[in-house]
């Protein structure tokens, strides 16, 4: 069983993020972590490997610093890792990222592709589905349980007020949702292996790609501007009788704040 796990290195949740004066870009403190949903994906891959044997390969698209997320993957138990690193890969949208990832995956043997349902930095939640589409594979999103048997997978997906059970033939792409598992803490033997691991770098040329197909140039979505949410006072007291206050609260939520 060959399992590929797509990992994204994201700014640590405690990293300071500010918007540049012209609103064109984000300045992010250099503190990074592996995307939490990708940790669920990796943990599930390791559990499948432990049960069915096979190999887990972690792949990341990112700058050199992202190798740390891959080393974390090896420390947890991934057998191999690969960094897709090229200046032309940077600043891409979900499509450009999924496109490069799918080209790299196509060169690998695989039965299962796992990744997080979304990255918790931009929260777009699109790369897993796009990779499935680009590789012509079935996709099951936001899984909370995964069983593999006889070349097929049975996955559970949490839906509103219940769960949906899906059966799909392999190979297939699954995106991991919270509740799928509890990611393990790396053992020191894994950490030592990760510290020594030589992680191969793959460039656009290695994948036969050009700059216009990837990264910023290959993106279909362009970021126009970043801005902070409107500052409002934390608490607003409404006076009057409960009925009038409730009507006023609904009016504010619908007409002023427009949250419902």
């Amino acid at each position, binding site marked *: 069983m060959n399992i590929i796990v797509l990992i994204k290195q994201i700014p640590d949740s405690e990293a300071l993020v500010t918007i540049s004066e012209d609103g064109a870009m984000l300045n992010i403190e250099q503190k990074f972590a592996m995307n939490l949903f990708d940790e669920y994906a990796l943990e599930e891959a390791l559990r499948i490997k432990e049960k069915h044997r096979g190999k887990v390969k972690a792949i990341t698209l990112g700058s050199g610093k992202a190798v740390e997320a891959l080393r*974390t993957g090896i420390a947890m138990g991934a057998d191999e890792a690969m960094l897709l690193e090229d200046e032309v890969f940077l600043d891409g949208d979900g499509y450009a990222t999924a496109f490069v990832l799918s080209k790299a995956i196509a060169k690998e043997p695989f039965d299962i592709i796992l990744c997080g349902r979304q990255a918790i930095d931009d929260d777009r939640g699109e790369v897993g589905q796009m990779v499935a589409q680009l590789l012509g594979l079935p996709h099951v999103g936001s899984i909370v349980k995964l069983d593999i048997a006889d070349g097929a997978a049975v996955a559970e997906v949490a839906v509103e007020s219940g769960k949906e059970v899906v059966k799909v033939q392999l190979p297939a792409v699954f995106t991991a949702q919270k509740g799928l598992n509890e990611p393990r*803490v790396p*053992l*020191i*033997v894994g*950490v*030592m292996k*990760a510290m020594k691991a030589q992680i191969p770098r793959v460039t656009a040329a290695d994948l036969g790609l050009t700059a216009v197909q990837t990264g910023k140039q290959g993106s279909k979505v362009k970021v126009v501007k970043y801005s902070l949410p409107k500052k409002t006072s934390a608490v607003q007291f409404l006076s009057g009788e409960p009925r009038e206050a409730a009507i006023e609260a609904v009016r504010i939520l619908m007409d002023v704040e427009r949250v419902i």
Partner: protein
Amino acid sequence: MDFALTEEQGFFKKIVADTVDRLVVPKAREIDEKDEFPWELWREFAGLGYLGLRYPEEIGGMNADPVTAMIFYEQIARGSVGFAQSVIMNALMGTNFIYRFGTEEIKKRCLYPAMRGEKISTMCFTEDQSGSDLAATRTRAVKEGKEWVINGTKMWITNGAIADVTTVLATTDPSQGVKGLNFFLIEKGTPGFAPGQVLDKLGCRGTGTGELVFDNVRIPEENLLGTEVNKGAEYLAEILDEVRAMTGAMALGIAQAAYDEGLEYARKRLAFGKTIGSYQLIRAKFADMATEMEASRLLVYYSAWRIKEKLPCRKEAAMAKMFATETCLKVVDEVTRIWGANAFAREYNPQRHFRDARFLLYGGGTHEIIKDFLGRMIIGKS
């Protein structure tokens, strides 16, 4: 000149920090409040394999160099200094002499289980009348045939109440001062060896620190941890620098934990309509704390690097221990000021850091003794 951690060391720091955040930080308050050894956390943490950090891979260790080890000491102390004391005692001082001088049989019985956390080890220097002044050690070792007979009492022994394996400092001849000192392996269950009073400490709690009593304890001659009699002080000198640098790293860990709490508070606490971090006097505190922590970190890691390179380090390690600890004391104090009255409440962490930091004043030598030693080293003996 290169002050950077290697990519591998940077990765190790991240992994250890994440592990500490996940396993240790959530238990720190409970360890402090209950003042009980955290057995569940110990088993979980030991299962990860960090206790063999400084020993070769062939025997199940990690073969970490002193710089990498310093990263570990700093991070685990950031999580809980009480737990860090128990862990580091086991990983460094409590097993060092057994690793260096124990027979294979002793290693099988004591070292390897301690590296797996199945046995808990400690090292005993301090007595009720002596601490940094090792020459005043009163615990006696007398050779009788093929046995050593140990008599005495040790005090302030980390892991004391729960230790399975102890490395005990004793003198064969008090008139010889440091030249009569030796280390002996004494195991739990040996007749005459028992834990005594457990101390109720201001900080660094949950370590079972206390008294160990040796009443006519008879041990076989191979339990002398050394190749020669009366060379204990020389053997000790070989790990003293790492112990001092490690104490500095623990100070950095506490300082960082307190600093992070202070920073978070300064960014969100409002006063007169603005976050307190926007006022100059609070900003100045962070400028000073960050500067002194950075200087401490350079000194601690520089010492570790010298130890790794086998360069003389007695002076640097003593400076690192003292400077980092004094910095830590300043940082924990400043953070209680930044937190205002909330720092005085037991439900928040600044008061714990404030209490914990005090203990590092004594371990690895009091600063009065270190200053005297450094002054003598710099000026020369009169």
